[in-house]
């Protein structure tokens, strides 16, 4: 039995230590917002946060997450999650939507580390998250919009 914390809640799961964290999150725990894309850490659809850092859960053995804080799209805290989700909705970013939870999780790391990113910074932070619908221009605009909203919130 392995104990992990996901979105500030503890789970006891009966899985092998090398089970991909993505499988535990989706199949064992039932949080399906995180998506399976490629299974080889190439596309970013499975991005979650592990102690605040982005991690590709499709190649992350669950044993790596023991004793660490896992956050999925369902549990992304509002300080970054709310402005990002609002911006995504305001600009109608998703087309099919499959990659978007991974996009937002990656964007949250970017904005936490760089609250006022340039276009180049956005590209550096987001280039590993593939969108087959090609929503990249809207993703970039939405990240700038979220950054502005966060800055306004902080100035209040």
């Amino acid at each position, binding site marked *: 039995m392995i104990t992990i914390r996901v979105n500030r809640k503890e789970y006891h799961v009966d899985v092998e230590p090398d089970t991909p964290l993505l499988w535990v999150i989706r199949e064992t725990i039932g949080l399906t917002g995180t998506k399976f894309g490629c299974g080889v850490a190439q596309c970013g659809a499975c991005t979650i946060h592990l102690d605040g850092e982005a991690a590709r859960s499709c190649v992350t*053995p669950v044993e790596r997450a023991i004793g660490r804080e896992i956050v999925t799209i369902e549990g992304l805290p509002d300080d970054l999650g709310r402005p990002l989700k609002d911006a995504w909705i305001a600009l109608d970013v998703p087309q099919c939507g499959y990659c978007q939870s991974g996009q937002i999780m990656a*964007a949250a790391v970017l904005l936490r580390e760089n609250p006022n990113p340039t276009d180049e910074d956005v590209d550096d932070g987001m280039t590993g998250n593939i969108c087959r619908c090609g929503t990249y221009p809207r993703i970039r605009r939405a990240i700038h919009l979220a950054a502005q909203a966060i800055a306004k919130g902080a100035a209040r």
Partner: protein
Amino acid sequence: MRQSSPPISASPSPRYPRLWGFALVLLVAPSPASVSLDEKAATKDDPAASRVAFLAVYKVLSHPRCMNCHPAGDAPLQGEDSHPHAQNVKRGKDGAGKYALKCANCHQAKALPGENMPPGNPNWRLPSPEMPLVFQGKSPGALARQLKDPKQNGGKTLDQVLHHAAEDTLVLGCWNPGEGRAKPPLAHEEFVRELRTWIETGAHEPE
């Protein structure tokens, strides 16, 4: 809850045939080379022997397993052809990547099973931007000068360079690169022996 889960070792999708032709280093290290690192080097100056030894060392340092994480630019390389790392990964301020593309976001503490799956090491990174230790594009002479210069080699003495080559898990990982990747052209023991010979015979620079 019990479940049957697919293994992490799932083969790479054919949609990404070469993307994991990664370079470098891994965690699970073979035994360090059997050189006595604590012996005081009995230096016998021999410029010709020294240069020959360094040319052997150079074959390893310029091999993709070593060179791919010592690039001339700001991006790691991957594959046997040392192409820029997929996803436009960059060095970052400490050598460990940027934002959601830090090395450890994909690279685990050890190589994942399966051909061309991400190789691993708990300390996976490039050299820092302040001390980039470039191997790519260096001639044997230039690389020898860099290895000897503490201002370019991370502040190391030649003894410390030898220790690094013999014991550092990132270096040792070059000989345990994960499935689908070639090892350097010399065995690790042979590499360390040639490096030691180079140092003991005066650390002369090839032309």
